[in-house]
Structure formats: structure tokens, C-alpha cells
């Protein structure tokens, strides 16, 4: 009787370990790859039209005011690309483009083309930042917003290192990671983002992907769109119209 019980416990133990290993081996790859988006639907998208942006910097200014962004830190910024006839590329973004841009210091004849590229957090479908946050302070909402819980963030900067777009910064006031939220607080109130609202040329568009009458669905149908750094596998939800190969 005594032996039977011991045998039973032994067998049960091995079965438990064996099944645990079996389950782990088949789910570990997914867990480690940071499949954090189970059950999350990316309902929203942001479209930037680089063909219409005039680099006025109103969006950067509006973002700073709306979200109380500390000086010299950026939740959004505008870059200017100047491609010269000889193929060389000049890029600048003085003060994140917040105060607009001075004329380019090149002769008109030497310039092949010049354009502006607004940047912001890409609210990726497979965000690196969410994968690497050790305490789950960076998370994805059910409708696809990538947000930071500043009461939980420990300020390790690991997410900043992991973000391929440098969309994050260390907030010098809260000492936590900070970034664009797609104005989550405004979206919840039925408004649009501050940058979209102030853009004088409609170069920034935001909305639900599944709204057939919304601006996103229309552009998704009408234009061929590109994302930044697709090779990272993050699957950004900020889509670009007219993205040049020089932009990264």
C-alpha cells in the first residue's frame, strides 16, 4: 500500500512535469516573441501625407500644448528631406520643426526634391516597446492604442532602446517613459488628435479603420501606403502617403 502511494505520486509528478514541458515547448515561442496583442483589434490608424505637409510645425506646437510635453522632448516632430541633384540627402528638424523651417541653404537648381515627413509613435500591432517593458507599464488597449501607465513605469528606458523609431523619451518631470498617445483622452471624448485638428493642409488624418465614411477607409482604398522600417516586424499603424526610400 505504502509503495503504491509512492509510485502513484512519482508517476503523477512525472506526468505533471511532462505535460508542463509539452505545453511550454509549444507556446514558449509565441510568448517570447511578445505576442501581446491577443484579443486586441487595431481599430484605429493614422495616415500622414508627405505630399501635402508644408512643414509649418503647428502640429508639434499643438501636441506640446495639449499634452504638456516638456521642452526639447517630442511626442511628434517634422523632418525635412532635401535630395540634391548629385543624389546626396540632407535631413534636418530644428526644434522638431516646431518653429517651422528656414529656407534650405542650397541653390534651387541643385535641388532635386524636398519634402516634409511628420513622425510620431506608430502604435504598432506588434510593438517592441510592449514586449520589453519588464513591469507591463507599456501596454496595448483593446482598440490598439499603445499607452504608458506612468504610475507603474520604473523608468528603466528599456522601451526607449527597443523602439526603432525613437518615438519615446524620458519625461524629466515624471521620470517615466513618455510618448504620443494619439491623444487618447481626446479620442475617448469623441474628438480627434490635437495635431490632426490644427494641420492646415490635412496632411495628418486619424480615425477608425472600419468606418467606411471616415478619412482612413477612403485613403486606404485610394492610395498605396507605406510604413516606416517595415523590416523590424513591428507592423506600424501610422501609414504614409508618398514615402520616399530615403526616409527611415
Amino acid at each position, binding site marked *: 500500500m505504502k509503495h503504491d502511494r509512492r509510485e502513484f505520486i512519482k508517476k503523477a509528478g512525472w506526468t505533471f512535469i511532462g505535460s508542463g514541458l509539452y505545453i511550454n515547448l509549444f507556446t514558449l515561442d509565441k510568448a*517570447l516573441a511578445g505576442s501581446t496583442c491577443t484579443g486586441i483589434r487595431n481599430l484605429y490608424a493614422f495616415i500622414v501625407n508627405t505630399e501635402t505637409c508644408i512643414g509649418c510645425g503647428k502640429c508639434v506646437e499643438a501636441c506640446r500644448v495639449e499634452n504638456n510635453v516638456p521642452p526639447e522632448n517630442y511626442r511628434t516632430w517634422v523632418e525635412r528631406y532635401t535630395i540634391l541633384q548629385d543624389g546626396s540627402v540632407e535631413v534636418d528638424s530644428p526644434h522638431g520643426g516646431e518653429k517651422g523651417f528656414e529656407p534650405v541653404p542650397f541653390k534651387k537648381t541643385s535641388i532635386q526634391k524636398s519634402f516634409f515627413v511628420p513622425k510620431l509613435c506608430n502604435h504598432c500591432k506588434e510593438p*517592441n516597446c510592449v514586449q520589453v517593458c519588464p513591469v507591463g507599464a507599456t501596454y496595448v488597449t483593446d482598440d490598439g492604442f499603445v499607452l504608458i501607465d506612468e504610475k507603474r513605469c520604473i*523608468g528603466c528606458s528599456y522601451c526607449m*532602446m527597443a523602439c526603432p523609431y*525613437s518615438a*519615446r523619451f524620458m519625461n524629466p518631470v515624471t521620470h517615466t517613459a513618455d510618448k504620443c498617445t494619439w491623444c487618447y483622452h481626446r479620442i475617448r471624448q469623441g474628438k480627434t488628435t490635437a495635431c490632426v485638428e490644427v494641420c492646415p493642409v490635412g496632411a495628418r488624418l486619424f480615425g477608425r479603420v472600419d468606418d467606411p465614411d471616415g478619412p482612413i477607409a477612403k485613403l486606404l482604398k485610394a492610395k498605396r501606403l507605406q510604413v516606416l522600417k517595415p523590416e523590424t516586424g513591428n507592423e506600424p499603424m501610422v501609414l504614409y502617403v508618398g514615402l520616399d526610400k530615403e526616409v527611415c
Partner: protein
Amino acid sequence: MQEIITSGFLFPNDLHAHWSIMIVLYPYITGLVAGAFIVSSLYHVFGVQELKPVARFSLVAAFAFLLFACTPLLFHLGHPERALNIMFTPKFTSAMSGFGYIYNFYLIIVLLEIWFVYRPEIIKRARETRGPLKALYWCLALGSLNDNETALTLDHKIIGVLAAIGIPSACILHGYVGFLFGSLKSNPWWSSPLMPVIFLLSAIVSGISILIVCYWLICRFGKQILDTECIKSMFKYLWAFFILDFAMEGLELLTHIYEAHHEWHIVSQMLSRRLAFSFYGLQLGICSVIPLIVLGFVVLKKMQDSTRIKLGLSCAVLILIQVLAMRWNVIVGGQLFSKSLRGLTSYTPTILGREGLLVALVLFLMPFVVMYVFNLILPLFDKEPDAEKQ
């Protein structure tokens, strides 16, 4: 405020290197732990008898460095008061979240091993001393003064088991630190499967080197007599591991150069314009080539023991600098180019301040203070065999 020198186009949030000298110090100290523990295990598990004189000391050194391995992180965190959340509310998709568990597991292993190794000594002192000291040793013995042969044999077995568990733990601990960087695909200078291997091997060589330097210093300025065979054996292991370490570092650089991914142009600029001295000069140059050649002579050639020790010791110092330079080049280097891949920034550590050089120096010296205090309570070295040899 530190002055930042930039060139080319940087993303506006890429101006500052956020992982400071503290994050350089963290893998450096952690590496010393792993290396010191490996030396101890070479004796306790693999039976390398020549290392017996430093077996206890290396264990205590590993413990002392381990105690301070995480403190640089606390000085870096924006919210150090939330640091334990990594263990209380971990998110296991993060490479960082497992560190607390691995660290604590390893700390327990090292503590237990030290206790078992020192048990006969503690019991002896608990019997011989009087008053508060007796109480202290009685407490350290956890009230168990049983040192009969059966108990000591069991202790010995347990030490072997703990050391055997400790080896993979030490390897995991440091390989894991390399994984923290190597797994970040957003950074072309870090993202490499070789990174954990390089961190582990450099950890081992830095650990052996610090033991050599400490052992020599203690013998030179203390009452301990230097065991020539022991230090020769350490030179041998240092050389062997350093060959592997250097080969891995070289292979990684070669892979970068040969593959020449589109990011390589900015990484190579960063190396030549920002890290020329610390990378080419120290890490790959002086501090690698000299020890590789000189240690070869030290191990293989016949020479006077005093010359051998001087040369080997110099190599150990150079290797300590090499590993520090490697940590600097990896961690700071990875932040000196923007993710725009079009511009470079700079980083100069401040002297004062929470993440300044002064704090870093104090944190680095703290393990030595721990070793000193430990020595006041229990001896770092087993003195009798040395006396016999002389």
C-alpha cells in the same frame, strides 16, 4: 550639464544617451561575479587542486560583487522605489523581467555555498570565542554546532551540488545580461546572437583577472603567502578563456564588416569617430593583443616565477581594462548613433550627480569593503596549507 557634440541628422529624441555609466558598471560588476564563481567551482566541482588557495576567497569575492551588482541600476532608474515591481508584477515577454529571479536564485546559491564552506570555521570560532563574538558565531552557525565527520562529509557533498548548480546559474546570469542587449533588434550594434556568448566569456576573464589582482595585492600587502602554483593556474585559465573571448569579439566585428548591412555605415562611423580609442585602441588593441601574446609566454615559456607573476599580473590588469572598455563600447556605443542612421551624438559622464563617475567609483569599491569586513569576521584564505608549502 554635459556638452553634447552632434553630427549629421539625429531624431530629436536621440540627443542624449540614456543608459549612462551606471549601465556600463552593471554588467561589469555582474561579470566579475560570474568569473569569480567559475574559479571557485573549478576547485569545488572539477577538482582543480592548484586553485584551492583561492577557492574560498573567490566565493566570497563573487558574493561581494553580487551584493552590489544591481545597485548601479537603482541609481539609474527613474523610479528606484518601484524596482521590486520587476519581481512582484513581472511581464515575462520582457528580457529584463527574469533578471530579478535569476539574480536572487544565484544569490541564494552563493550564500548557501559560502555557509557550508565556512561552517567548520564558524563552529570552531563559536567554540573558541567568548561573549558577543560567541553569540555572533553561534548565530552565523544557525545554532548548529555539529561538526562530526558524518556532518562534514554531508556538507562537502552539498558544497559540490551547490557549486554544480552554481556553474550553469553563473553562466545564465551573465549570458542573460548579454541577451538583454543582444535581443534588441532595433539597435544594429547590439542585436547579435553572439552578444550573450561575448558577455559570458568576457565576464569569466574579468572575474579571473580581478581575483588575480586581489590575490596578489592581499599577498603583497597582507600576511598571506602567495601560492605560485595557484596563480600560475589562474594565468592558464585566464589565457584560455581570453583566447575564446577575443575570438568571439573579433568574429562579431568581422561579421558586421563582411555583411555590411545598411546600418553598418553609421556603426562604422560611430566606431571610428566616437570610440576610436576605447574600441580600436583599448578593446581590440593594447588591452587584447598584449595579454594574448604575453599570457602565452607566461603560460608556455620557462621563466623566473617573479617575472612570470609580474607579467601575468600586468595582463590581468590590462584584461580588466579591456572588459570595462568592451562594456563601455557596447552600451554607450549603441546609443551614440541615432536610429535615423544619419547622425552621431556624444556622451561624457559627469563627475558628480546620481549617475556620475564618483558614484560609479564608490559603487565599484563597495564590494572590496564587503570583502574587508568579511575578513574581519571570517578569514578569506585558508592559511594552514600555505604555511605548509613554505
